[in-house]
Each structure stands twice: as C-alpha cells, then as structure tokens.
C-alpha cells in the first residue's frame, strides 16, 4: 500500500502559523472551564501570545518555497508576508478591543476565540494551493465573521448586519463553489498547479467552461474584498457590526481575499492573463470611482470608512490588474500600510464613540482637538494617509501600486486612480477640518486616552508616518513577496 499520503512534520511547518493561532483559540474556549472572571481576563493575553508565537514558524520557513499535505498548501514569500500582515492585524485588533468590548458590554472570551479562528482561516487562505483549500479557508473566516458581526446580539443593528452578511456571504460562497466546479470541468483538476499545467499543455485556455469558472471565482472572492459591483453589503454591515469587528474585517477579510485572488489568478490562470486583465481593469476602475464618489455624501463616520474601504480595495485591485511581480509586491506593501492607517482610524472611532455605538456622526467630531489633542492629531495623520498624501504610508502605497500599473502599460487606470484620490481628499479632509477648526459641543466632555487603546493609537500613527518617510525597509520586504510558480 502506498503511504505517500501520510503527512510528515515538515508539512505541519507549512501551516504552522494558522495551527498555532487555531490552537490558541481553542485554549481560550478551554479557559471557560475556569471561573468567568479568570477566563475573561486571560482571553486577550492568550490571543496575543498565540499571534506572537505564530511568527516563529513564519521566520523558520522564511521565503523558502515549500509545499505540504500532497500539494494542498504552499508557503512562499508571499504567503509568509501576508500571514505577518494578518498577525499584526490581529494584535492591533486586540489592542483596541479590550476597552471597546467592556464599554459595549460584549466582554466575552468567545470574542477573542472568534477573532483568532477568523485569522487562522485568513492565514490558511494565503497558503492555499488548491481551490478546495481556498473554499475551506474562506468558510472558516466567513463563519467567524458572521458571528462576530452579530456579537452585539441585543442590538437590532448588529443582528441585521450579521444576517445580511450571512445571506449575501453564502450567496458569494455559492458563486465561488460553482466557479470551482466549472474550472474542474474545464481543467480536470482543482489543484492550482494542475490547472496551470492543463492550460499550458492541453489547450484548456480557450475552453469557455474554464473561463466562466475563473469569472465566477473572481466574483466569489471579489465579494470578500468588497469590489464593485459586489460591494452592496459593505456599508450596512460595516455600520451595524460592532466597531472593533468592522475594523478587524475591513483589513483582515480584505487581505485574505486579495491573497487568494493573487495566488489563484497569477498561478492557476497566469497563462491566460490576457483574458482576465481587462475584467480586473474595469472592476478596479469602477471600485475606485464608486467607493470614493459615494463616500463624499456620507454623514456617518462608520459608513464613510466603509466606502473608503471599498475605494481602497480598488487601489489594491490596480496592483492585481497589473499582473506582474511589481504589482504583487505593491499589493503586499499597500495592505501593510492600509492595515496601520485604517486600524488607526477605527481606533479613533472607538475612542471617540460612546456606549451603544453612539457618536459616530461626523458632526460629533467637532472640536475633537480640544477634547483629546492626541487622538485628533493621530486621526489627522490617518486621514491624510488614507487620502494618499505625503509623507505618509498611504502615499507610498499608492505610488507603488500605480508604478506597477504603469509597468503594465495601464495608463488609463492610473489616471482614474489619481483623479479619484483627489475626490477622496475632500471627504477625508472634512473630518480633519471639523476636528481642528470647529468648536466642540458645549456639553462635550474631554476624552481620556485609555491604556492599551492609547498604545494602539500611538503604534499605528507612528507606523503610518514611518512608512511614509522611510518606506525602503518594508518595500524591500515586499519585494520578497514572490508567488511560487508551480
């Protein structure tokens, strides 16, 4: 009998980070055996330690290319850097969650367990070398996020967000599955390397079934990254879900979705990129235009940031549409920069908000500078970064994405990107203006910056400026983000 399917310890190293994160999540569930007071206090620490420990297998494998479990999973420079982005996202999420979930009365250990389970799914997505692994990891992260969106279960808005996300998310999963089935029909395999082989050698490239399958996979993953025209759920879910969850999924789910999109389309469908590049071109252009233009009309900061996250998905799609190595590196750099500026902005939203998700109107940021100068200054940095103004990480991120697109001769897309960035300056600057130039409401009390939330704010603001002034180190790292060609 053939024993080749029996995995070795080396296989575990490929999925080491996600295994550690999932184990930490289960440890949190087991901690429930202890009195509630202890398990609640221990949960964020277990979560943080698990995320920190996940860096050990990442540094062990480094950027070396290894496959595991009969080619079901793969680790390479791209996978490791995406996992690092996700682990940092998790750490910062814990940083701004501890204060928030106490204020909103959501202080349960399950919150951290679900965040960790979602991260393990996201990490697995970056390592998937088989379409069935893409689907499996998508479900791990989606189901955790559906529950997290409804975590404020006594609030109708949170329930509504959870249900909407669940229904539309299941719909998108069905699209993805249908796409996988069609690709199997066209290529005769669902392993990414096998599909690439079939396209290269057996002439499956002109098979309409395969092309339709690729399209449906793009729809399923496009939903997760909130690309137009699959963005309908985003504003409602982002507004209704607890703020800390929204912040987490606006970065985490996006990073995971882009990791899968990049790997599937550049490895399996790499040889038919002439077919999908125009489609991604159009989706990227639409996403940048719709996201930025609709964000102008928002009066609620959570909805504004939701449309802003749609717009940023568009900029990242520009890097993907370029379909070259510069585009992949730019994508990783963008997600790393976006992670700090976006999570930072959400941390200020959490700090300035009041119990019961109150105080999210942009008007309630009037004179924030006089209520908490530090938070207002940090928010100013994040708004400038999100708008893509130098000297912030947001500017460098856009610069790299656009130069990758220019390498691929996509001048039109770069022009659209630059013009929509100009539009975005309006709505980001408006927040800055009301914070610094308007008087606070007479009854508005000063806001104190509390422990871990303050640290999170300081770290994100410092990182955002650092990436703008000295982007070289991260850019070199992002250059190592090569997707292994099977």
């Amino acid at each position, binding site marked *: 009998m053939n*024993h080749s399917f*029996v995995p070795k310890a080396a296989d575990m190293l490929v999925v080491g980070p996600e295994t550690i994160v999932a184990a930490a999540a*289960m440890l949190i*569930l*087991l901690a*429930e*055996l202890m009195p509630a007071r202890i398990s609640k206090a221990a949960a964020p620490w277990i979560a943080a330690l698990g995320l920190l420990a996940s860096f050990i297998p990442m540094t062990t494998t480094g950027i070396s290319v290894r496959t595991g479990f009969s080619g079901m999973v793969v680790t390479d420079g791209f996978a490791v850097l995406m996992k690092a982005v996700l682990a940092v996202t998790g750490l910062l999420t814990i940083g701004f969650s501890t204060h928030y979930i106490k204020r909103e009365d959501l202080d349960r250990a399950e919150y951290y367990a679900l965040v960790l389970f979602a991260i393990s799914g996201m990490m697995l997505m970056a390592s998937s070398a088989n379409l069935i692994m893409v689907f499996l990891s998508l479900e791990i992260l989606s189901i955790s996020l559906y529950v997290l969106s409804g975590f404020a279960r006594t609030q109708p808005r949170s329930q509504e967000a959870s249900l909407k996300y669940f229904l539309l998310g299941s719909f998108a999963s069905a699209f993805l599955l249908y796409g996988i089935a069609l690709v199997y029909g066209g290529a005769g395999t669902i392993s990414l390397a096998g599909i690439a082989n079939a396209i290269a050698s057996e002439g499956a490239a002109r098979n309409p079934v395969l092309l339709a399958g690729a399209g449906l996979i793009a729809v399923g993953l496009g939903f997760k990254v909130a690309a137009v025209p699959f963005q309908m759920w985003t504003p409602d879910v982002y507004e209704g879900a607890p703020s800390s969850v929204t912040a987490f999924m606006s970065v985490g789910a996006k990073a995971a979705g882009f990791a899968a999109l990049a790997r599937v389309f550049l490895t399996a469908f790499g040889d038919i990129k002439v077919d999908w590049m125009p489609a991604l071109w159009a989706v990227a252009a639409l996403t940048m235009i719709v996201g930025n233009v609709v964000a102008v009309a928002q009066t609620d900061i959570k909805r504004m940031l939701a449309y802003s996250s749609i717009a940023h998905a568009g900029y990242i799609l520009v890097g993907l549409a370029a379909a070259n190595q510069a585009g992949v590196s730019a994508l990783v750099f963008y997600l790393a920069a976006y992670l700090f500026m976006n999570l930072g902005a959400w941390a200020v939203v959490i700090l300035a908000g009041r119990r019961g998700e109150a105080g999210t109107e942009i008007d309630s940021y009037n004179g924030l500078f006089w209520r908490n100068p530090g938070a207002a200054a940090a928010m100013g940095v994040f708004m400038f970064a999100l708008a893509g103004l130098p000297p912030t990480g947001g500017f460098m991120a856009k610069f790299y994405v656009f130069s990758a697109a220019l390498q691929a001769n996509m001048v039109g897309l770069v022009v659209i990107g630059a013009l929509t960035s100009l539009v975005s300056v309006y709505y980001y600057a408006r927040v800055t203006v009301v914070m610094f130039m308007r008087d606070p409401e007479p009854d508005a009390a000063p806001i104190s910056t509390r422990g871990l939330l303050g640290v999170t704010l300081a770290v994100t603001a410092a990182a955002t400026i650092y990436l703008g002034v000295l982007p070289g180190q991260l850019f070199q790292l992002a250059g190592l983000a090569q997707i292994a060609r099977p």
Partner: protein
Amino acid sequence: MLSAYFPILVLIVLATGFALGALTLSHVLGPKRPNPAKSEPYECGMRPIGSARQRIPVRFYLIAMLFILFDIEIVFLYPWAIVFDHLGLFGLVEMIVFIAILVVGYVYVWRKGALEWE
C-alpha cells in the same frame, strides 16, 4: 462475476429478516398500553397536524446542530477504523488530535449549558 455480489444478497436477507423479526417479536410479546401522546408519529412534542409555519424553540436548532457536529465525528471514525492497520501509529495520533479538537468543543458546550433542556 455475479457471485461476487452474493455477500450483498446475504446481507440484504439478513438485514430484512432481522428488522422484520424484531418488529414481529415485539408486536407479539410486547405489552400494549397506548395513549394519545404515544400514538403520535413523533414523540417530541411537535403537533404533527396543522400549519408547519409556527415558531419552534431555538433549542431544537441548537441540539440539531450539535448532533450534526458529533455525527460527523462518527462518519470519519468508521473509514478510519477500516484502514487503521495501514495507517499505524500516525493514524492513531491523527485521530486523537481530531477527537481532541472535538472534545474542546464538547467541553465548551457542556460548560455553557447548551446540553441542558431547562
């Protein structure tokens, strides 16, 4: 060629015979004290006649979901038991890890009182 299917025929005869035998024996030997609740098709408190569109306690849903989870465990255990000899120590460790993960879930739902029917 057809003889290869003979064991299946034997299985069908045995299975049918066992089911019929058990039913007949319990019909002949068992005491009968019917009451209205016992005569209903399902003895779980659901009214079998009437509109199906009524609200049911969410506890049914929870129990059904937990049942599926642990049922899947059994589904994996059977094929594993068949090839146990070939998998050796590795197969044992792998299954222990799998069951340990499910035990974490079991301990959790138990601790949270999800298995209690108030």
